[in-house]
Each structure stands twice: as C-alpha cells, then as structure tokens.
C-alpha cells in the first residue's frame, strides 16, 4: 500500500473516531461538571480530583508552610513551626539559614519557649499533643497530652506552667511543666486559637475563632477567655459582639491594653450589600485587661479598600506600634497605639461601639501597610524590638521588617519547593484580591478550609430567603453535587463565572486559576477524627448507635420505609447518596423543600446543622426538627438510644485518631 493511502485512511479514521469522541467527551465534561461554557478539559477531574492517585502523587511536593515562630532570648535563632512538614525549623537569624529540621507531631501550629530558652514547646494540632524539644540537642524529649487540636500556647514567666488553647475540644489545658502532665482543663470559647500572657504573668488571655452559642440568625458574640494564673480558673469572658475569628493577641509592655485581631461578618445581611462594603470587615479589638475593662473594636479597613483576614498581632518593645498580619491581603498593618488610646479616651462611652463599623477611622491610627509575601501569618519580635519576623506561609519564607524604618529589609528562604497547582490554588484561596475591593478571601468564611459556624443570606432571591448554613470545605472530593440546593455538579461550576457575578463582584478566575483553586479545595482534609480510634473498635455506645443507623425496623419491629432509614441517604463510604431529598427540614423562608444530602465526615466539628443552621446541636436535628420521622425514623427511640446514635455519628469520616492521644 502506498504511503499516501495510509495517510488518507488514518485521517479518515481519526475523523471518524475523534469527532464523536470529542463530542461525547464534551458532553461528559458538561454533564459531570455542570459547566456549559467553562472550557474544562479532562485534566481537572482525572488528575486533580484523584487525590492520592499516581499522577497526583507525582505532582506532590513537600511544602513547609511556616505558621508561627519564636525568637531565642539572645535573638540569634528563630524557631519556626512548619505546618505541612510536621517539623520545627531552627533558623540562624543572622545568617538567614535553616540550621536544623526537627520532626514533631502532625500539623504543628505554635511554638513557645521556656523562659530559660533551652526548651521549645510545639503544639501539634493533628496529634493532640505538645512536643517538648530540647533545643541544645534538637531532640524531642517528651510529648504532652492535651486537649484536641492544640493551637496557641504560652509558658508562664516562672516556667512552671504551659497554657494551651485546644481548638477542637474548645478548652484550655494548663500543663504542669515540672511533671509533664496536664493539671487542669478549663472551658474556653469555641475553637480557641491563641494564648497571650499579661506582662505581669497574672492572667492568660485566650482568643476564640467561633461565636459562642447564640440564637439562630442573631449576631455572633465571640469571647476572649481570661484565666487567672493564681486560681487557674476562668475569671472573665470578654465578649466581642458582631465579631468572630479572633486569632492573635498581644499586650502592651505596660499591660494597659490587649490587642486582638478580629473579623466582623455581616452574615445577617443579604450578600447584595457587597457593593457597599458590607460583607465582612476586618480589624482589631482593644481590651482593657482589668475586671470590667472596656472592649473596643476598631476597623483596619478603609472606605474603598479592605485588608482581609487579620491573623496575628505583635506590639513593639516600646508599646508604640502594633503590627498586624493580614493573611488575605499580604500586608502588615502598623498601628499607632497612642493614637488608639487618644481616640478611645476622647470618645464618650456610648459612642465607642460606633467605631466597630466605622470605615473612615483607620487613617487616624494606621501608620502604614508593609507589603509581604503570600499569606503572612505568625509574627515575632527580636529581643531588642528592632526586627519583626513574619512567617510568609505560602512562600515558605520569613520576612524581616525593620521596626523603625517600617519596611521589609530582608527575607529568609526556608527551602520549600516551587509552587505546584495545589499550591497556586492555596494562594488563590487565601488571597482576597478576587473580591470587590478585596473584601474577603475564600478563607475568610472557610478558615483552614473549614467553616465559620455562621449562616448567610447568599442567594439573590430576595432579602431573607433561603438562608444557608456555611459548610466545611474539607473532605469534599467525590461528594458532588454542591450547594445545599445541589445546583452545582462540580466545584468548577461552584467557583466559576457565576460565583463572580453574584458574590465576589469582580473578575472571575481564569480557567487555569479555577483548576488550581479546585485542586486545592479538593486537597483539604479533616485530619484525624478524635472519636474514631485507630483500632477501629467502637465503644459500646457507638456500636449501639451503629445498629440504629443501619436498622431496618423500629423498636416495635415495624419495617422502616427505605427512604426513612439513615443508611439509605447516608451510605458509606462518603455517607451521602449524592441525591436531593425532602426530609421535612424546609422552613418558611425556604423556596424549596429538597436539599442536597450532605456527607457526614467529621460531623461533630461542624455545628450548627441542617441547611439553614437551625439545629445548634446534633440532638436538635431530631428533637426539635425531626418530629415527623421524615428525616429518619426517630420517634420510637429512647433518649438513651438517641445519645447512642449521636455517639456513632461522631465517628464517621476522617482518619482514625491515635488512641494514645485522642485529645480527650
């Protein structure tokens, strides 16, 4: 056969095969993604979605993600928690080099030094422990059992005790450092994050991320918990109204003020207010530490520019300036504290509350904004106060700021690899420049890819209708469709062009950005489930609950219709059947009764519940809102059986927890 004929045959075959192939491929992509015009190709689903698959693993890189840091008493060393490397990095602050990488627990969060400078304590969020590191040898010499999800921590000036904020168990551990054992566990706010000690060591202040329990669709009230070092009891709960996500805290050297970072969500207003600067605002809380001291909220935003996601705060050695990282705006705000004091003192008490929403004030106390690399997080001052170190989390880098010149004077590369697609997606997720005036990032409502425990009026369907409970983004792979209405067949649709139209109000992500963002979201994991032991052996109560979850007959022996069984709509392994269902949970403000059946991964950490967040607890799903037996047959259950069912539900999803350190 002549070559020319071969070429013709191949060309005809290609046309015959590829044309319908292309046609069917496009149909497949459109059907699976729900996107009509996004131009998606095969790669997102068959590469990025396949977390843990061969191709995904080939693209994985070992990032460091510095989160918090501490400086040695002599100022020569930095100790940096590398969140994604499960390590504590020892850095030569003078030479700007990494001297040592010390393996600690999983997902290290914060580091605190013993006053003698010889020991570092590292909180490991996913290990529910605190690593005790001998800094001379670089050896981890102990692991302290604390509560679940330990985050911020601080050693007392006498070196006798360590305060640990347990973000997942909502409590505070006080550890006796001489004995290496937890001495006391105190109730904190919800998801405590950071610990600040007053300069005299008399009190510990602990910030909280989520609102305290408040009635449905009322403003959040989030607390800073104050523990008296003398009694080791909670002495005060300073409340910040209409605020949440209180992360960092620091005190003036004189101890007259504490400064915390905060977010003010306008979740009770419809999202149509974005154009007016009314979605989220960002600022600080100024707390007078004494009993009954004032709590004043001040915004760091400007009328037409927002500085999203304040994360950490450090007050300079002279007490003149406070430095705040904005992890969603990639800047450090410098605040003149004397100006703040003057403002507060000159204002009648009844008008101080007005400052919380005043976008025009920040010019009076924000001295400057210092640009940083991507996702600035933890801050630490050198002992002489002349250098401020900033953990640039998504750069794997430390920025060095001159606190007099108020500019970055150097950076310290920690040695992370170049960004892959997931890393690029992480930067997009955490940066607010894809929203109007930089009003918020994805992270603003989904800190650490989780939720913010709030409900929102997001839909452009009229004020007050179809309020939705903001869900966690962790563990979303293979749980499509998305949204409570199930309208979005894929995250590409969820985060695509329409998203920009009705929420972010600015240019949509490019296709490449969308690939990266979705790849990052799909990489998010809940981490270990503290109710799920590694042995797989359930407690007696959990076993009884499992039986109830899977039952086909009522306690009286009557058959339960298939559609009213738990297991029908929530089958393993994802505990969702990916279908819409009307289980009678619709309310008077809902325009439809059918909602997407949610997966149940790590359910215990995601209150409130139901599509509109009406159920404050798991119990309320059935006691208050499940009386007609449509959301599972429950009316035949005793209270003890309902308790068993809930104990089982808590075990679903996530990785098994290390039994030795379950965070209990």
């Amino acid at each position: 056969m002549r070559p020319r004929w071969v070429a013709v045959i191949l060309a005809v075959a290609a046309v015959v095969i590829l044309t319908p192939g292309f046609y069917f491929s496009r149909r497949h992509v459109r059907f699976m993604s729900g996107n009509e015009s996004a131009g998606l190709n095969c790669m997102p689903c068959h590469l990025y979605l396949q977390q843990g698959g061969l191709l995904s693993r080939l693209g994985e890189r070992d990032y460091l993600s510095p989160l918090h840091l501490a400086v040695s008493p002599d100022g020569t060393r930095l100790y940096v928690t590398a969140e994604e490397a499960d390590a504590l990095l020892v850095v030569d602050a003078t030479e700007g080099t990494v001297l040592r990488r010390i393996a600690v627990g999983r997902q290290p969060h914060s580091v605190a030094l013993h006053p003698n400078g010889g020991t570092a304590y590292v909180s490991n969020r996913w290990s529910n422990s605190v690593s005790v590191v001998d800094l001379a040898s670089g050896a981890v010499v102990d692991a302290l059992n604390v509560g679940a999800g330990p985050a911020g921590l601080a050693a007392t000036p006498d070196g006798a005790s360590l305060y640990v904020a347990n973000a997942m168990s909502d409590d505070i551990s006080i550890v006796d450092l001489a004995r290496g054992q937890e001495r006391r566990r105190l109730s904190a706010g919800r998801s405590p994050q950071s610990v600040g000690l007053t300069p005299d060591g008399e009190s510990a202040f602990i910030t909280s991320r989520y609102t305290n329990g408040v009635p449905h669709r009322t403003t959040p009230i989030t607390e800073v918990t104050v523990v008296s070092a003398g009694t080791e009891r909670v002495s005060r709960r300073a409340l910040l109204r209409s605020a949440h996500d209180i992360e960092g805290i620091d005190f003036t050297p004189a101890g007259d003020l504490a400064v915390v970072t905060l977010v003010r969500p306008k979740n009770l207003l419809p999202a149509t207010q974005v154009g007016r600067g009314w979605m989220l605002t960002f600022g600080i809380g100024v707390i007078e530490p004494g009993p009954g001291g004032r709590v004043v909220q001040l915004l760091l935003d400007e009328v037409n520019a927002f500085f999203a996601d304040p994360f950490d705060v450090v007050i300079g050695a002279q007490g003149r300036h406070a430095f705040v990282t904005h992890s969603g705006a990639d800047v450090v705000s410098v605040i003149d504290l004397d100006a703040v004091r003057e403002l507060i003192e000159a204002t009648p008490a009844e008008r101080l509350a007005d400052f919380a929403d005043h976008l025009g004030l920040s010019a009076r106390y924000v001295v400057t904004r210092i640009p940083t690399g991507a996702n600035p997080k933890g801050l630490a001052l050198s002992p002489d106060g002349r250098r401020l170190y900033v953990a640039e989390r998504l750069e794997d880098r430390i920025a060095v700021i001159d606190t007099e010149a108020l500019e970055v004077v150097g950076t310290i590369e920690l040695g992370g690899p170049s960004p892959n697609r997931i890393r690029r997606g992480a930067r997009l997720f955490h940066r607010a420049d894809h929203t109007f005036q930089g009003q918020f990032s994805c992270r603003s409502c989904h800190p650490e890819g989780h939720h913010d425990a709030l409900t929102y009026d997001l839909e452009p369907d009229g004020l007050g209708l179809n309020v939705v409970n903001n869900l966690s983004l962790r563990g979303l792979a293979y749980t499509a469709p998305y949204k409570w209405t199930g309208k979005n067949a894929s995250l590409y649709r969820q985060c695509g062009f329409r998203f920009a139209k009705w929420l972010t109000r600015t240019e949509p992500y490019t296709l490449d950005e969308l690939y990266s963002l979705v790849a990052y979201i799909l990489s998010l994991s809940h981490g270990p489930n503290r109710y799920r032991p590694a042995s797989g052996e359930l407690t007696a109560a959990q076993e009884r609950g499992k039986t109830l979850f899977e039952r086909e007959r009522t306690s009286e022996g009557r058959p339960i219709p298939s559609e009213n069984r738990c297991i029908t709509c929530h089958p393993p392994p994802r505990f969702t059947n990916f279908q819409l269902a009307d289980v009678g949970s619709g309310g008077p403000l809902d325009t439809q009764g059918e909602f997407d059946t949610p997966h149940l991964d790590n359910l215990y950490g995601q209150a409130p519940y139901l599509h509109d967040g009406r159920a404050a607890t798991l119990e309320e799903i059935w006691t208050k809102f499940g009386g007609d037996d449509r959301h599972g047959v429950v009316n035949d259950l005793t209270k003890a059986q309902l308790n068993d069912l809930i104990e089982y539900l808590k075990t679903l999803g996530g990785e098994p927890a290390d039994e030795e350190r379950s965070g209990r």
Partner: protein
Amino acid sequence: MRRLRGPIGPVLLAAAVSFSGTRELGAQEPDQGSVPVYHDWRTFTVADGLPSDKAMAVRVDGDRVWVGTDHGLAVYEEGRWRSYGIEDGLAHDVVLSIDVHPETGDVWIGTLGGLNRWSAGRWETFDQLNSGLANDVVYGVAAEGDYVWAATAAGASRFNVRTGEWTIFDEKNTAMHEPWTYGVHAAGGMVYIAAWGGGVLEYEVAAARWRDYRDPDGEMEIDLFPHDGLVHDVTTSVSYEGGVLWAATYFGLSRYDGARWRGYFDHDSPLASNFINFVRARGPVAWICTDQGLNAFDGNTWVTYQRDSLGAGAMEIQHGDASVRRRSATAIAHNYVLGVDFQDETVWVATAQGVSRGVAFWESVNLVGR
C-alpha cells in the same frame, strides 16, 4: 453537769467525748471529731435582694454563695445579692440544685427546665432537646473530674465535659427500678445517687461498676429490723464523706460506714423529722435538712436547730443521754429546710422563707444528763 464552750470563729462542740456524770467540754479547734454549733443567725429574704424567699438550694463557691430559689438564681458576693433569671440565660425560674466544679469553678445549676453551666459569666443550657440530658427536671447535680452528673426525673445523666458524651443511667442499665432520681453526690471517684423508690446507687468511676443499697424491708414505712440496712427505698438525698455514706429519705436517716448501717428516726433520736429534704456531710458531720428544722450529727452528738412560733431560735444539743436546750434571739429563717452548705466556718441554710447564715459565738454551754 457538763460544760461546753465554743471557740471564737468556728464554734465547735467536742462530740467524741465520752460522758459519765457531769463534766466540762473544753473549747476545741476544728477537727474531724467535732460538731459545729451555731446560734447566731442572719436571714436574707426578698427584702435583702433575693429573687424569692423560697430557697431550694444553696452552694458555697469560695467568697460567693449561690442560692437557687423558685424564682431565679441569686449569688451573694461582697455583701450584696445579685439575681439571674431566664432573661440572663437560666434554663428555668425554679432552681433545684447547684454544684461548683472543684477545679474549674464552673457552676452547674439544675432547674425544672434543664441544666445550666455558668462559667465566669457565660451561660450554657443543656436540656433534653439540645443535648443528651435525660430529662429537663434536674433535682440534683454533682461535678467532679471529667464528669457532671445530673439526677433527673428520667434517670441519671452523666456528661463528659471533655468529649461531650452523654450517658443515661436508668432502670434499663442499672439496678434502679424506677427512673426517678432525686439526689447525686460525687466525691473521691465515687458517685452516689438517691433513686426515688430505688434506694441508693453507688458507682465506682474507675471500675465503671454499679452497686445498689436497698431497704431490706422493702417499701414498708416502718423499719422492721433496726440497723439492717437503708431505712427506706424512697431516698431524697445522699452524701458521702470520709468513708461514710449518709442517705436521706422521707422516712428517716441512714448512715453507713462501709461495715454497718445505722438508722435514725424522729421517735428514737433528736432527728427533727423523718421527712428529710437534703443531707450534706462535712467531715464526720452530716447536716440534715428536714421539714421541721435542721440537724447536725456526727454519729454521736446531735445538734438541732429550729425556729419557734415566736421567731426565736431553739437549739438542742444531745450527746448520749445528756442534753441541753438553748434559746436564742435569732433563728433559721424557717423550719422547712431544703439545703445547707459551708463557707469556712460559716453555715448557709436554704429554707422555705429565706436563706440563713449562721455565724460564730463565744460562750459556755452546759450539758445536763437526763
């Protein structure tokens, strides 16, 4: 004749003194073998700032005193009362029981509408709809270690404050044959539950082991054989201290030292009444709150406090067959007593018509042999 003297501050009567003839009992420092004696009372009512005169429970929390009434919760601090009601976060106006966690200082409040936690000003409500609490009627509450126990009208609930797990103990998984529980006391790794009609249940926390104590005579209202066990199965309150279990019933008082039971009744002892609302032990002394007055008793010496028809105080001390009666200008607020607790050497008493505070005195008391 014997002569008793009370010391300044704590007024204490030596109780473990053997007696023959007439003899003086000297003033004593507080020790494990003493029964406190008070006869100088100050009463607080609505006029002083309480939300209601009917005080259902009292609990001391360091410098604070918490009082549960039928119309809200009150706290006495720095010489004045402050009230809390439903508008503040209280689950129900009627407060039946209060306990303070010894380590955290969190105040746990049992009401007719659920269980509250008050923690440095923050209120949380746990009820049968939003939590695993067995029932909203919380007659008794006790907090120790990782657990808070609630005695409810539908069994006892245990809440693990670290994990959030609720466990219900009722007739299905304990020896309790009725699910009504009226009182709970937790101390030293042991939990005792007064189960109405079910005697006393004992739970050893470390071993997760239950044991029950029942009236050998069943539910007979008389004690057929003295000292053979619990005097009655209808228990209302229980307290455990120093290895001694005290059980209150509506038909008398029981004391169990781990080896022997003793029963006490109003017809054969100075017990003010068989109808006992509450009992709390402090050291070797049990304080017994009845519908006819207040008793203190350490197994040997009784002290009875009552209010006479003129509003004066009537106190009787009895040791063996010797006794002394005294009158005083002040008295407990009412003879219907519902709760008692101690603030250092001061006693606080919840009654149907106010809260009384007993303070120290100094004088000699003569015991006269019968």
